[in-house]
């Protein structure tokens, strides 16, 4: 090793140790479990990729995965446009700003299991304010028995909990636009849509990438809230990958398949996040190279 490298190692080492203990070692134990079988007594047998094949072929996994994809898709389709709309409607100056910001931040400050409990009670038909009111109005609503009702409850809860995050991110992008831009647009006679399309949206693009990534990852990994509210039911209707995984690992103590599944789960999130990131930032690069290549109109 060259002498100037020694000093660099000194700086990197503490971080390396920390990352090893917090991420690499736990991850490697999972990898270890995923390729072995155990009959208790701390005896392990090498099974190779058998668990992976089993998990990938199982209908149970496919169903959970499709539920997750559907859930994240719906969440993104609602929360991103809604977040942008709310951010646009928020005041830019005056006392209203702090009021709005505090109100927006409130749901984000509540622990996830508490959010679950709140909605679990709120939506109950017998004593919950929402559930009881709906029942009194003659709406046939019961999230513990009806699949659609359970989904609606979870989606409304997630929108209530997390749209604020999108709002706050978008708002931070919006307030960085100098007033002169709006003034110039007014003098130009630009329409409200043109102002949004050509001034506000470009300025929000960077924060939107972050918002989409965060909301996708979080909603795809969702566990606590459906666990508290529906417990994965009715039947398996709201059993997402994370709930399925916990059932497999702790409920059935199938450590091998559970480990294999969690690795697949992890890879899916990684790949989809990478795709989102690449697609959304590529637009940026494209627009620049486009300009260089020519074709002005």
């Amino acid at each position: 090793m060259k002498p100037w490298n020694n000093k660099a190692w000194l700086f990197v080492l503490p971080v390396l140790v920390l990352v090893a203990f917090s991420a690499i070692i736990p991850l490697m134990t999972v990898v270890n479990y995923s390729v072995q079988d155990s009959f208790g007594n701390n005896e392990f047998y090498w099974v190779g990729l058998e668990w992976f094949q089993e998990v990938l072929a199982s209908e149970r996994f496919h169903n959970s995965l499709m539920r997750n994809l559907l859930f994240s898709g719906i969440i993104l389709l609602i929360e991103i446009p809604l977040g942008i709309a709310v951010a646009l409607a928020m005041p830019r100056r005056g006392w209203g700003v702090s009021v709005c910001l505090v109100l927006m931040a409130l749901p984000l400050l509540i622990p996830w299991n508490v959010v679950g409990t709140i909605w679990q009670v709120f939506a109950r038909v017998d004593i919950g304010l929402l559930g009881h009111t709906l029942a009194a109005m003659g709406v046939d609503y019961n999230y513990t028995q009806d699949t659609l009702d359970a989904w609606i409850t979870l989606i409304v809860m997630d929108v209530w909990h997390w749209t604020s995050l999108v709002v706050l991110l978008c708002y931070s992008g919006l307030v960085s636009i100098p007033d002169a831009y709006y003034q110039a647009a007014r003098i130009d006679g630009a329409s409200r849509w043109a102002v949004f399309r050509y001034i506000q949206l470009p300025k929000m693009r960077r924060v939107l990438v972050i918002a989409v990534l965060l909301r996708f990852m979080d909603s795809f990994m969702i566990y606590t809230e459906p666990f508290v509210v529906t417990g994965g039911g009715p039947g398996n209707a709201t059993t997402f990958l994370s709930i399925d995984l916990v059932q497999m690992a702790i409920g059935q103590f199938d450590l091998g398949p559970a480990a294999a599944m969690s690795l697949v789960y992890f890879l899916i999130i990684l790949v989809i996040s990478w795709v989102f990131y690449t697609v959304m930032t590529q637009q940026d690069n494209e627009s620049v190279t486009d300009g260089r290549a020519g074709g002005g109109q």
Partner: protein
Amino acid sequence: MLELAGVSKRLGNEDHIRDVSLQLERGSMNVLLGPTLSGKTSLMRLMAGLDRPTHGDILLDGVSVLGVPVQKRRVAMVYQQFINYPTLTIYENIASPLRVARVPRTDIDRKVRHAADLLRLTEYLDKRPAELSGGQQQRTAIARALVKESQLVLLDEPLANLDYKLREELRQELPRIFAELGAILVYASTEPSEALLLGGNTATLHQGRVTQFGRTIDVFQRPVDLVTARIFSDPPLNTAPVCKRGAELQLERFVIPLSGSQAALPDASYTLGLRPWHLSLQGSSGCSVEGQVTVTEITGSETYSHLQVAGHPWVSLTHGIRQPEVDTLQSLYFLPENMYLFDEAERLVLAPDLPTEPAWPE
């Protein structure tokens, strides 16, 4: 012709504009000169129609335009910041006001290319604003103002964010670029030298009030009062209270002999004003005062010497490099005919005769 008749703008408890009356002719260059917060931008917003005056009327060719929304006023504005649409090409940026106005395609193309040609942007038409230099970005914004073919073009310190060289270059081009438009040009600036270089007319602003409006050179040479003279002087006008007795002025212990029309003024207290370039460190003729040297700044071709004269900070601007020693007493020489005198109400009572005024030192 754009006419402002007794226009005032009040926001909350603050008067932003106080009783401004101006008449701006078509095809003229009008400079709004004043320090930051003197009301230049507020006045421009009123002219553009972005704000409504609290009192007074704004007339275009004799017709009040107060009820006309800004989009229909044929106004263009260029700002200190370089304002362009970030995702659009330079071509589309310049074309944007024409697209809004639904001008036919072929006309748009012709006008955009003409404007780009005038502003030397032709080779950048396919690029995006972020890929251009600050100067080119501002040229794009100016081109956008140009293609609109507005009756009123408002330039709000358009060159303030550019570096020295680009500023000089674009300042020379601006009047030429807008000349064929025949529009009313309004140009806000904090720099007296910029007003003089642009020529045309100048309105000096002080705390929301127009103190004087006229041909730029006239306002410069014969400011109506001390405030105007101070606004229109950089480096600042040297002033000191003086007392006139007979044919002489007393500035503390210094005596300045008077003659002709100066001597004919009634005996009273006045404020003396002297341009920095009328003060010389080397005497030959005229009269002199003494001051203590505080700082010397050298630009290369010129020397700014700061002195305390009878307790007042004075500046002398002389050609070449001179280095009077700090804290020493230094004599300042000047010709009495270069003096400005303001009465106790700070109105101008005497200005140097026009023909003796030397050219602005560039």
